């Protein structure tokens, strides 16, 4: 993927660029807000990674201006300020996701992957399917190999998120945000607890595991490769 990184801190941008290149992406770095907006509107990129605080033009203004110029490229905003208000402002300006500094590179990569594969239009699917696991969104039923699986409401939402992201890694933070709507870091192992309960229901009674733990990153649901 071609990724444009607009970030004025050299160390951070080097760190991001190096990591993205190693993950097989092409990465361009711009350190100035105005140049960044120019690049974002002129070049063709798959993802824009934009820092909020930039010289000459701040990240929010870049996103607003790019959206006004009908640039539909997914945007991931980076920020050192982690307030909820700021997050809402970022999303309202037209950003697709929001990541608070400091972050682990695996978190950034997972979010970039999630953005890149976000379907362009919200498709109206009523049944999700991963291998022999099926989820009926209308009747709220889950079956695996034809067997009914009884899930708690929260487990259902968690499984739905994982099934929609089939094959991609969802980090703990991404799950906390999308499944629980928690925008902070809980002290206890909320995600782990629910993942293990879900696993006990959808994987343990069957031969082939579908729910995989990706070490020090997150979780991924997919058929055996």
């Amino acid at each position, binding site marked *: 993927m071609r990724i444009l990184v607009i970030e004025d801190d050299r160390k951070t941008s080097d760190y991001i660029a190096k990591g993205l290149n190693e993950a097989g992406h092409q990465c361009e770095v711009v350190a100035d807000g105005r140049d960044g907006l120019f690049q974002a509107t002129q070049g063709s990129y798959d993802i824009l990674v934009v820092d909020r605080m930039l010289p000459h033009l701040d990240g929010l203004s870049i996103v607003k201006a790019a959206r006004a110029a009908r640039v539909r490229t997914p945007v991931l905003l980076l920020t050192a300020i982690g307030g909820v*208000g700021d997050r809402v402002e970022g999303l309202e300006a037209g950003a697709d996701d929001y990541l608070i500094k400091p972050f682990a590179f695996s978190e950034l990569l997972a979010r970039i992957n999630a953005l890149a594969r976000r379907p362009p239009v919200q498709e109206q699917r009523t049944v999700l399917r991963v291998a022999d696991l099926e989820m009926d969104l209308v009747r709220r039923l889950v079956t695996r190999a034809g067997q009914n699986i009884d899930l708690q409401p929260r487990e259902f939402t968690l499984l739905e998120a994982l099934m929609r992201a089939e094959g991609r890694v969802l980090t703990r933070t991404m799950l906390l945000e999308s499944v629980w709507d*928690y925008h902070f870091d809980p002290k206890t192992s909320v995600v782990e607890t629910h993942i293990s309960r879900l696993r006990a229901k959808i994987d343990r009674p069957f031969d082939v595991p579908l729910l995989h733990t990706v070490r020090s990153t997150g979780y991924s649901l997919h058929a055996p490769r």
Partner: protein
Amino acid sequence: MPRAKLLRSTPIRFALTYGLLFVFTSLAVWLVSFELLRRELREELDVAVRETYSVIEATYASDDIEDLVGTMDSFVRLNADGSRVFALLDRSGKILSGNLKHAPPREGFETVSALQLGLAGDEQFRILSGDVGGNRLVVGESFKEMEDLAQIVLVSFGWSSALAALLAFATGAYLARSAQDRLDVVAASMAAVSRGQLDVRIPLKGSGDDVDEIAGHINQALERLSTLVESMRQVSTDIAHDLKTPLNRLKLLVDEAATRSLNDEAMRSLLEEALAECDQINTTFDALLRIAQIEAGARKRHFLPVALDQLVYGIAETYADVADDNGQSLRTERIDAVEIQGDKDLLTQMLVNLIENAITHCPPGTAISVGLERSGECWSLFVADDGPGIPENERENIFRRLYRLDKSRTTPGNGLGLSLVRAIADLHGATVNVNDNLPGTRITLSFAP
């Protein structure tokens, strides 16, 4: 007080303004009443002159002026002070009787000077002359008496006005002075505060007047300010202390990694440890910033209606499993429907912090309960456990930033969870209380409008 400062003083300016206003008003009142009085007196003079004229005229019988002359003579005799003038002239203008030397030429009422009547002095006379059987009768009276009366009125009024004005100025100056003195005390106190003496308080008079009220408010603000400054001082010390420990550990880890020759595996484990320390420091900073941001109150603009009961149900459902995995139980008690204006994310974090506190600080086997009760506009939310409890003398401390009970030093956490809870509760106008749950701890958030 120097004169320039005296004139800038608000109470003294008030006193001066009102004093002058008083003087001008009484001057105007006095002028108007004096003029009215003069007019009245003049009319009375005319009436008196006409009456005298009529009396003398009545003594005239047809073609007989003897009685007339006689009457006039007796009038002249009775008029020792010369304030009245009389004359009777025949057709040729010769004076037959009276005390005048000249007679005015015209008939009717007229004001003439003593000179015109051939008299000494500079008095003015009001005279009436008319025809009586072909002769001319002139009757007049001096203005002197009237002027004397007016003079008396003028002087007495002037004195009383001057006295009243003096009294007004003196009272004004006294009141202004005492008000100014009290303002000076306030100013001196504030000057001391600006020099950094935060313990200065403005003395109150105890009369409950407006200056006392303002001074009371200022004292309250000073009280809050000094508490804030003190807690800030405390917090910065705590932060410095609290961050020094992980920074030291980090330094040791990095030092070890840099100086010792290690194999990859050992190196990786050292770096992972260092990373964990960094994360811990970051988390602490984030939490501190968050608390500061919440305390600044800027987030109120994101307030929306939040169904508190739904929030409690959702979180309790999630954490029932977490507690279960920990060998504890979490159940909901009475949950009333409550909708408030608030920040949903913060309220979520607040409740999660309270529940996680109970989970992390209580041993397995503990029963945790959550409840939400409403009566009218008031509601209260509680998280209770039957765990080891918090000693009574520590119950207020647990809300202090970075404060940790000795026995909690080993459990994960940064001592900011409850500070955050209190900050969020404050933002929503709720108060937080810690009570004994007999046994255990019960933390209650109550809101009353």
